């Protein structure tokens, strides 16, 4: 069976076609990374050429002369805190729903899933008003709570479908041994949910890191918001300083790139598990 097949002409043609398409796909990212190390003049003169020398001034300028460091901080806080609370709160709800199957928990389950159908744009205007009324406008706590609330539907779906395949025997014997429910959940069940938690962290973390609309609306104007929002403003303000904006986009892309290279398997798994919901 494992005999090595001969290389056919069609294999080479197929490889070349794929390679050409891959070059086209990779070009915009390559263009971005390259432009971040060029002077503005170089970008304008010949967009495709390699940088003459590695030019780091635009990074230095962004980090010392603008509010970008504060925006980096905000992006990191929003992403990390939201994700940490999400994987604390949501699996517990899913566990409660899955392990106590009755018409009430089933009703709650359907109620949660309904949220996946509601796009953010539908409730953003009343939400904006509500944030002001609740005194959460302009705080980082506001968007964090909105992110968690918005991922309850998807998260509960992922966790409950995974929990169906986790046998109850261990939990039952722990119960007989007098272990509390909280203890059973965190010591026995939660560690078994690792793959789902990884997918949640990766997918939701990426979504929050890249989000634009929510932080722009509910963080105070006149202060740095998140990286993505600041970049959006820079496009308007520094429309002639492309080198600087490219340096900014590169700084936002690097953590994503590192996460992707180290956690690639979970990105792919997350996509296929997210697709089940159809």
């Amino acid at each position: 069976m494992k005999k090595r097949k001969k290389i056919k002409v069609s294999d080479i043609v197929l490889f070349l076609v794929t390679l050409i398409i891959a070059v086209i796909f990779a070009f915009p990212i390559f263009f971005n990374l390259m432009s971040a190390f060029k002077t503005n003049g170089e970008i304008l003169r010949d967009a495709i050429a390699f940088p003459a020398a590695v030019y780091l001034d635009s990074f230095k300028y962004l980090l010392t002369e603008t509010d970008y460091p504060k925006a980096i901080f905000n992006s990191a806080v929003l992403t990390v805190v939201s994700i940490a609370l999400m994987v604390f709160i949501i699996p517990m709800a899913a566990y409660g729903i899955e392990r106590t199957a009755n018409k009430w928990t089933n009703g709650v389950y359907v109620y949660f899933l309904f949220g996946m159908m509601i796009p953010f744009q539908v409730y953003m205007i009343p939400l904006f008003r509500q944030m002001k009324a609740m005194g959460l406008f302009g705080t980082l706590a506001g968007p964090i709570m909105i992110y968690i609330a918005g991922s309850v539907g998807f998260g509960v779906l992922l966790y409950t479908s995974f929990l169906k395949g986790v046998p109850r025997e261990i939990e039952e014997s722990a119960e007989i041994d007098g272990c509390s429910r909280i203890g059973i959940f965190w010591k026995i069940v939660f560690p078994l949910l690792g793959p789902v938690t990884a997918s949640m962290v990766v997918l939701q973390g990426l979504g929050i890191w890249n989000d634009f609309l929510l932080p722009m609306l509910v963080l105070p104007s006149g202060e740095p918001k998140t990286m993505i929002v600041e970049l959006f403003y820079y496009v308007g303000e520094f429309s002639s300083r492309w080198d600087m904006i490219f340096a900014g986009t590169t700084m936002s892309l690097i953590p994503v790139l590192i996460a992707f290279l180290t956690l690639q398997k979970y990105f792919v798994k997350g996509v296929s598990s997210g697709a089940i919901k159809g």
Partner: protein
Amino acid sequence: MNATIVKKKKKKWWLTYTFWFILPSFLLYTIFVIWPTLSSINLSFTSWDGINPEVRYIGFENFKEIWESTRVHNALKNTIILAVALVILENIVALGLAILVDKVRWCRNLFRSIFYFPVLMSGIIMGFIWMIILNYNFGVFNQLLEKIGLGSWKLDWLGDPDFALWAIILSTVWKAAGYYMIIYLAGLQGIPQELLEAASIDGAGRWKQFIHITFPLLAGATTVCVMLSMIGSLKLFDQIAVMTNGGPGFSTETLTYIIYRVAFGEGRQGFGTALSLVLFAIILIVSLIQIKLLRKREVQM
């Protein structure tokens, strides 16, 4: 609220833990998703401007204006163009990429990663990169046209109402296709090789195998991808914000974009909310129709 009733009815201890486990999610979700969604119905009958503490009710005026406004009609037209074009193009490109990655002999994982990476980028960053690539004076695209002697085709792609929407569509295909590719790839790898071998023994060529075996067996993946890409295209926002800001004029406004512009740019939050309910209705109807239609053609294995 459901859970509190449970608590009163039965006093078994495990019900109490269920209640406390669900409570935090239930509260957050109700306060920050369901409550604002419900209050949007109320807000859509007002002429609220976003600042004035006094909210005035104007009945169905907002919906009447939506029905009559040419600007909304244009946004609706753009939304439909965008949705149809994106669903078709994204799925064709994604299926093509999946077949290539599935069949190619070398560097399979590298190619898969390259096609997938744009999915991970924010729409703002991706929109900015494409805006620079398509820039009239210094953009890569026009420079390339000049180099291959087609300088006369040079255009201000994002400044021209005829091309701006297509620039948004094509760059979005570039960004999103990798996502659907992963789903198609999983589908392709689930097709039993014996079926294709049997067909080729019976004399079916590659194309016939694809049409009669591969494609029907991918129906499950297609259902998911068409639905997700349709809903994704209805929600498209970031790219438009950075690439055209709805312009030139109102020419690239979509429903999602017009909601944002009207509510936060023009201070008409009541009208914006009414529009958002229209968008919600469209998304609900589209998803229900799609689930019905596409479920029919799935092949039972």
